[in-house]
């Protein structure tokens, strides 16, 4: 690689901030920091304000329009914490059959909730809707690729199944009831490519009258397109959904390092690679959002809604300043969180939360994450502070993950297209793990080093121990020393016979990292094209 040319890229016009932009951004920063220095965000305790500011997710925009009332049927009587972030809309459109009214909206950073109603005026429309109590997710976006959505088996509503992925004129995102009565529309977009939002709708039974149905619509994901709601089998009244600029504040807490440390002591085998754990938790007055890089596991699905699985979530509670606690499930609609996409989920609250009153987020009944990020995370049961430490499990995770990603990246593009060929680590014991390679069984084991022992001596000792332990007999084909990114390494290529019979070729790599001795064992498991062994050998400069 030509270093000078490489550096020049970052000195090119694209990477240099223009004076105009520099000045503009500086003004923006000065303006905001000066304002923050003078005016507190909320009339709340200093520690709460400090924690929210440190979390840096706090969003407050323009002054309230306020005056909302219908949301009481969704969230209960106390709407106070969301009043500044709500809007009374009251837009109506009608034809001979229906009168459609958009009443109110409220938003946090990720979700906008609307309340709208449909009044039946004439003809078939006058018949009572069967939608009461329904709760459905609007679409399976990925299914749009082939030009059709999978229609849910929902007795009283359907998801449109005639969507043309290349039709950029108007897309009906979902419809309820057999006559496609209520729809959310998105206009002029290539849907699958550009729209990552998710939509949920729920009938609000508490507001229902003889001729009028009320609905709460949740647009989750920060919808960027202009949506509209419409009613009627064909073209009926339609109202564009206004964006709500005021966003309710939120607090984000990174939780992974701490529960990881806790689980090391209590349940180390579930630690990594699990889709039942969160990395980050964001709490807003309307919901708790969870993110997990490893994905989120479904416990069950109903009406196209997938619900979140995992003890982490089932035990999650909010602790309040007054000493009370409330389970996340207890605070959430339908008691469970909903999977928004592969790595994120949301627990939509059934009551409005004043996040200034939340002291901590608690999981497994004992791991307490204070909202004040300066306060220590504690194991409530023992009273001890939880401090993340780098231990054998972390070492296995780092080395294993790095190796798995590296091996995966060496597979030829035509083979690795849309497929992972090496992933992991998955834990076997507290000091060994498996990397799931396509062509090799790869086991990594971590041992303590013995003071004064050279790598060669340690390798010989462990090699003998493996033979004795498993009653295997090795005939060494080759033994090489070299160096790679972790330092010195010894590679042993051996034929193994078990109980007198040939059991195949085994490959061992011995090296040290973080004061531990690591052994990598590769055993071929497919007769096809082989890459993993070569990939690891390519990392080594043999002497």
């Amino acid at each position: 690689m030509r270093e000078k040319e490489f550096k020049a890229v970052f000195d090119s016009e694209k990477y240099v901030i223009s004076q105009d932009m520099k000045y503009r951004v500086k003004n923006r920063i000065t303006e905001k920091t000066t304002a923050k220095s003078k005016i507190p965000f909320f009339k709340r305790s200093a520690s709460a304000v400090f924690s929210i500011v440190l979390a840096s997710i706090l969003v407050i925009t323009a002054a309230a329009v306020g005056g909302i009332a219908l949301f009481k049927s969704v969230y209960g009587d106390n709407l106070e914490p969301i009043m500044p972030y709500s809007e009374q809309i009251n837009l109506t459109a009608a034809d001979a059959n229906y009168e459609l009214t958009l009443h109110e909206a409220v938003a946090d950073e990720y979700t906008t909730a609307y309340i709208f109603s449909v009044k039946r005026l004439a003809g078939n429309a006058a018949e009572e809707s069967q939608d009461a109590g329904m709760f459905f997710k609007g679409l399976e976006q990925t299914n749009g690729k082939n030009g059709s959505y999978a229609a849910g088996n929902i007795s009283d509503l359907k998801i449109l199944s005639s969507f043309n992925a290349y039709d950029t004129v108007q897309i009906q995102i979902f419809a309820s009831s057999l006559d496609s009565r209520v729809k959310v529309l998105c206009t002029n977009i290539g849907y699958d490519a550009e729209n990552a939002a998710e939509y949920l709708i729920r009938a609000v039974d508490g507001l229902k009258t003889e001729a009028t149905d009320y609905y709460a619509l949740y647009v989750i994901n920060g919808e960027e397109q202009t949506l509209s709601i419409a009613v009627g089998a064909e073209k009926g009244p339609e109202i564009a959904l206004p964006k709500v600029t005021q966003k309710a504040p939120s607090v984000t807490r990174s939780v992974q390092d701490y529960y990881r440390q806790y689980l090391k002591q209590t349940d180390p085998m579930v630690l990594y690679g699990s889709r039942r754990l969160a990395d980050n938790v964001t709490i807003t007055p309307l919901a708790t959002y969870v993110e997990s890089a490893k994905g989120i596991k479904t416990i069950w699905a109903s009406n196209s809604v997938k619900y979140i699985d995992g003890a982490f979530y089932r035990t999650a509670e909010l602790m309040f300043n007054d000493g009370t606690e409330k389970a996340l499930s207890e605070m959430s609609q339908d008691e469970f969180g909903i999977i928004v996409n592969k790595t994120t989920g949301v627990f939509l609250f059934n009551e409005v939360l004043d996040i200034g009153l939340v002291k901590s987020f608690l999981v497994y009944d004992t791991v307490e994450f204070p909202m004040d990020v300066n306060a220590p995370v504690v194991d409530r049961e023992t009273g001890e502070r939880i401090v993340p430490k780098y231990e054998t499990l972390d070492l296995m995770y780092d080395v294993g993950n790095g190796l798995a990603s590296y091996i995966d990246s060496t597979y030829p593009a035509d083979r690795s297209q849309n497929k992972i060929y090496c992933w992991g680590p998955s834990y076997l014991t507290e000091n060994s793990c498996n990397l799931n390679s396509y062509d090799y069984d790869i086991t990594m084991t971590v041992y303590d080093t013995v003071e004064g022992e050279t790598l060669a001596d340690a390798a010989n000792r462990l090699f003998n121990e493996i033979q004795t332990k498993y009653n295997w007999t090795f005939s060494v084909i080759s033994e090489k020393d070299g160096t790679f990114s972790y330092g010195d390494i010894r590679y042993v290529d051996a034929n193994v016979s078990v109980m007198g019979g040939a059991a195949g070729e085994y490959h061992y790599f011995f090296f040290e990292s973080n004061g531990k001795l690591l052994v990598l064992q590769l055993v071929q498991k497919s007769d096809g094209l082989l890459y993993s062994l070569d990939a690891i050998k390519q990392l080594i400069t043999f002497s």
Partner: protein
Amino acid sequence: MSDVKFVERAYDLFADTVYRVCVMYLKNQADAEDIVSDTFLKLFSYGKPFNGDDHLKAWLIVTARNQCKNTLSHWWNKARTDLDSIPEPAAPAEDFMALAVENLPEIYREALYLYYYEGYSGQEASKMLGITESAFWSRLKRGREILRLEMEEECDERKRVQSGI
């Protein structure tokens, strides 16, 4: 919470660096502008002291990087293709390195950037990226290799074009 003047000084010193980091991750100037602003606002909210300007610079780079990654992994950005990020169909020869750098997977691009452009040691850069030093060296090696291959292919292509094959 930091002092307003402290933030302004930090901005004067390191706005260029933070912006460069943001463009490197986000590949477009408009989003980068927002993250630059957010990063210095985070600095304002940050309550702890720094051990000199080097420490401050490293903190800003790491914070900007995290902000960018958050932005990129944000739900609504995942499925969005930014017009600025779509490579031009035929890059002029002199821009080829820029294109190759941009197309480099993020984990390699950031390793190369910190090491070659910012001049951090492997130990420092690995700390900033939150990975082990050995993982950093692996990434650096792999990134270099990809760039080298890309450049070699381009040279071959140019030779073919020049010789009329």
